[in-house]
């Protein structure tokens, strides 16, 4: 109980510190000015989201191989957390893009594959709600998760190679071609804070999933008795 509270406090402090660094310590960027500071949040969240989905992929593989419920729990937890992070990426991106480039969205490789990634994991969660039997649900969603993860680089590649004749104005999320040391440090600190937040959220969600499993086991026990 206390360990979780302390961890939560660490998470909040890190996120606060990262925000403070992004807003006040990092120098103002020359071309985009203050607006560029969104980058520290946006790009760091993107990295953490990708890490979360990588965890999902590994958990999916482990479930198919081992069939232990804990991998299914980890899979769904990291997928939901990953979706939360990518949702913030998809929201903060347009907030940044509109003042910077005059448009909310563009269909370049990175944005489009991020959006398709988001859609695929929404489908992953949706699929889970439509299968009642727990082991079947775990297996089928794990397999869908594996296919989805393999698909995303293909989406990225397809757009990179085939839609360059429809040039996008800029690639969002770059922000700094020549990062100065303070900016770099701020960025990596933000990435760290986001990853710690990711771990915390996955652990909390995983705890819920494990509890749910226990409830099902006990219910089953009571029925049989």
């Amino acid at each position, binding site marked *: 109980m206390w360990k979780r509270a302390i961890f939560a406090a660490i998470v909040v402090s890190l*996120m606060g510190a990262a*925000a403070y660094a992004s*807003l006040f310590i990092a120098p103002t960027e020359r071309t985009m*000015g*203050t*607006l560029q*500071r*969104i980058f520290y*949040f*946006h790009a760091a*969240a993107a990295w953490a989201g990708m890490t979360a989905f990588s965890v999902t992929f590994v958990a999916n593989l482990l479930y198919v191989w081992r069939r232990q419920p804990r991998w299914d729990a980890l899979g769904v937890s990291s997928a*939901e*957390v990953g979706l*939360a992070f990518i*949702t*913030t990426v998809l*929201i*903060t991106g347009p*907030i*940044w893009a*509109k*003042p910077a480039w005059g448009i909310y969205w563009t269909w370049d490789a990175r944005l489009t594959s991020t959006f398709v990634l988001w859609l695929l994991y929404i489908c992953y969660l949706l699929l889970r709600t439509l299968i009642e039997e727990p082991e079947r649900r775990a297996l089928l969603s794990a397999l869908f998760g594996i296919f989805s993860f393999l698909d995303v680089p293909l989406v990225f590649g397809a757009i990179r190679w085939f839609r360059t004749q429809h040039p996008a104005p800029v690639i969002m999320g770059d922000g700094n071609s020549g990062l100065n040391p303070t900016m770099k440090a701020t960025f990596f600190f933000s990435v760290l804070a986001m990853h710690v*937040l990711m771990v915390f*959220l996955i652990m*909390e*969600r995983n*705890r*819920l999933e494990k*509890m*749910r499993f*226990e*409830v099902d086991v*006990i*219910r089953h*026990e*009571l029925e049989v*008795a």
Partner: protein
Amino acid sequence: MKNLGSVFAAYIIGWAVFFVFYVTVARRTSQLKDELDRLRDSVKKGK
């Protein structure tokens, strides 16, 4: 400092997403914990 509004909006909305996610999970966890305690009592009484 133009666009400061956008920067704050981005941070606040971003944090809000995480906060809503955490609160939803926490609420469901506490509800489930109550149910789990109830069920564990039933099992004890059954024995």
